[in-house]
C-alpha cells in the first residue's frame, strides 16, 4: 500500500528514473563483439574496395601489363579528354533529373487521389505498385518490345490511332534513348514513391482538413497549404533516394539500350563496366571514383537543403 503511493508520487518517479539511469551506465555491458561481424564484412567487401579505388585510380593498372606503376593524375586527365565522359556525365545528370521529377510529380498525384475514399483504391494501389516487384532485366526486355521504333507496340498503336507524329524513335533515336530509359524507370519505380507518399498522407491528421473546410478553403489551397508542407519529410526522402538511385543506375540503362544506339545513352556506371571489360582497370576505377565523389557532393547539400525545408514547413 505504502509502496504504491510512493511510486505514484511524481518526485519518487523522478528519483527512480534517475536511479535507473545511473544503474544503466554501470551495470549493463554491451560488448563490442556485437558489431564485429557486420563491420568485418562491410569494411572488407565495401569500404576497402571503395578506398583502394583512390590508390588504383592513380596508377596505370590494366589487363595489358602485370606491373602497376604510380602515374599520378594521368587517368583523370585522360578521362577529361574523353568526349564520351562528357556525354556520360550529361546522360547521368539527365537520367537522375528526369527520373526524379517523374517519380515525384506523378506518384504524388496518384497518392493524393488514392487517399480520397475511392472504392477500389486498394486494387488500384496494388496495380500501380506492381511493376516495382519485377526484375529490371524483365522490364528492360518488355520495354524493348514496347519501344522498338519499327515493330514496337507503342509505335504500332500510335500509327493505328493515326498519331504518326507521336511515333518517335524511342530507344532507336540517339537523341531520345536516355529519356526512354528514364521513362522505363518512372514506369517501374513510381509505385514505390507512391506508397511512401500514401503512408505520409495517411499520417496527416484529418483535423487540419476539417479546420480548413470550416474556413472555406478550396481543394487547391488544402493541397498547397496542408498536404504539401506536412508531406515534406516524405518528399525529402523520395527526392534523395531517386537522385542517388538515378545517379548510380546501371541495370535500367544496360538492359534496355546497352548504352546505345552508338553510345548515346551511356551513363557513368555503364561506362565503368565497359572499360572494365576492356581491361582498362585504373581508368575504370577513376571513373567509378568520380561518380562516388559526385554523388556524395550532390547528395549532402541537397539533404541539408531539404531538411531546412522540413523545419520551415
Amino acid at each position, binding site marked *: 500500500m505504502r509502496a504504491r503511493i510512493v511510486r505514484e508520487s511524481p518526485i519518487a518517479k523522478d528519483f527512480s528514473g534517475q536511479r535507473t539511469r545511473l544503474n544503466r551506465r554501470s551495470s*549493463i555491458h554491451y560488448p563490442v563483439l556485437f558489431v564485429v*561481424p557486420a563491420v568485418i564484412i562491410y569494411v572488407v567487401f565495401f569500404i*576497402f574496395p571503395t578506398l583502394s579505388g583512390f590508390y588504383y585510380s592513380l596508377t596505370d593498372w590494366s589487363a595489358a601489363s602485370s606491373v602497376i606503376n604510380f602515374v599520378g593524375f594521368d587517368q583523370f586527365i585522360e578521362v577529361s579528354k574523353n568526349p564520351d565522359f562528357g556525354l556520360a556525365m550529361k546522360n547521368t545528370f539527365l537520367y537522375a533529373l528526369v527520373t526524379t521529377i517523374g517519380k515525384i510529380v506523378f506518384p504524388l498525384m496518384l497518392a493524393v*487521389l488514392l487517399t*480520397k475514399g475511392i472504392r477500389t483504391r486498394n486494387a*488500384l494501389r496494388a496495380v500501380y505498385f*506492381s511493376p516495382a516487384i519485377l526484375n529490371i*532485366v524483365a522490364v528492360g526486355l518488355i520495354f524493348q518490345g514496347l519501344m522498338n521504333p519499327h515493330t514496337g507496340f507503342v509505335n504500332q498503336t500510335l500509327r493505328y490511332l493515326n498519331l504518326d507524329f507521336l511515333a518517335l524513335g524511342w530507344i532507336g533515336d540517339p537523341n531520345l534513348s536516355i529519356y526512354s530509359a528514364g521513362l522505363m524507370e518512372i514506369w517501374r519505380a513510381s509505385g514505390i514513391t507512391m506508397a511512401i507518399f500514401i503512408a505520409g498522407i495517411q499520417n496527416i491528421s484529418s483535423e487540419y482538413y476539417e479546420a480548413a473546410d470550416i474556413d472555406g478553403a478550396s481543394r487547391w489551397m488544402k493541397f498547397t497549404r496542408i498536404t504539401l508542407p506536412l508531406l515534406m519529410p516524405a518528399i525529402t526522402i523520395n527526392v534523395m533516394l531517386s537522385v542517388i538511385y538515378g545517379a548510380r543506375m546501371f541495370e535500367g540503362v544496360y538492359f534496355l539500350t546497352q548504352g546505345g544506339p552508338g553510345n548515346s545513352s551511356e551513363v557513368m556506371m555503364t561506362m*565503368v563496366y565497359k572499360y572494365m571489360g576492356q581491361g582498362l582497370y585504373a581508368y575504370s576505377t577513376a571513373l567509378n571514383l568520380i561518380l562516388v565523389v559526385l554523388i556524395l557532393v550532390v547528395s549532402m547539400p541537397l539533404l541539408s537543403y531539404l531538411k531546412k525545408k522540413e523545419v520551415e514547413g
Partner: protein
Amino acid sequence: MTAKRKRWRLVVGEIGLWILSLFIIVPYLLVVLTSVKSSKEAGLFRLSWPSEFLAIENFRILFERGYFLQGFTNSLVVTFGSAVIILLCSALLSFYIARVNTWASRLLYRLFMFGMVAPISLVTTFNLLKSFHLLNTRLGIIMVFAGILIPFAMFIYVGFIRTIPREMDEAATIDGCGPYRMFALIIFPLMKPITFTAAILVFMNVWNDSQIPLFFLNDNQYWTLPLNIYRFFGYFRTDWNYIFGNILLTTLPVFLLYLVGQRYMIEGMTSGAVKG
C-alpha cells in the same frame, strides 16, 4: 447537393485512374498473350488473341532450354545465404548502435550510412574477390550483397530497436542474463516483426538484382533468374514468344507472392524510407 457532387467527382477520378492503369496492365497482357503465340506473330507485338494457341509447344522449349532449375537453385542459394548473413550481422550491429551512445558508436552509424549512398566500386571489388578466390562463386556475390545491404538493414533495425524499452535489457541483466544470452533470448525475439520486414527488403533486392551477378559471375552456370532471362535472350533474339514466356515464368513466383502478401511486400520495400 455538395455530397452528391463530391461522390460523382470520385467516380470520375476512379474511372480515370483505371484508364491510366492500362499503361501498366497492357504491357502485362502483351507479355502473357505473346508467350503463347508463334514466333512470327509474336514479333508483331500486337495486343491480339493468338491465331494459333501454342502454349504447350512454347513452354516445352522454355523448360528444355531455359535453365530454370539451375537459375532457381542459384537464386534460392544466393538469396537465402545473403538473408541469413545480412539479418544476423545487422541485428547485432544495430542493437549496439541503438543502445550505446558514444562517439565511436555514432561514427559507426555514419560509416554505414555511407554505404546507402555510394555506388559499388567495380574493378576493385572484382580484384578483391579474385584474391580471395571468390570470383565466379555464389559465396562471392553473397558477400558483396551483404556489404551493400547491411547498411539498409541496419537503418531500419536501429529505428525499431530504439522503440524497445531499455528496461528490457535491465530486467534481463538483473535476472542474470549475460549480454549474448540477453540478445538471443530477449531482444532478438522482440525484433521479429522488423526482421520479417528486413527479410523482405533483402529478398526483393537480392532476388531481383541483375548487376552483381553480371559483374562478378563470368560463369553463367551460377547466374540467378534475372540474368537467366538475359542469357535466354542471347539465344533467341528474335523469338519474342520465348523471351516473353521466360519473363512470364521468371516473374510469376514473385507475382504470386505479391498477390498473397502485398501489404508486407510494400512495407518491406518502402520501410527504409518510411521508418527513417
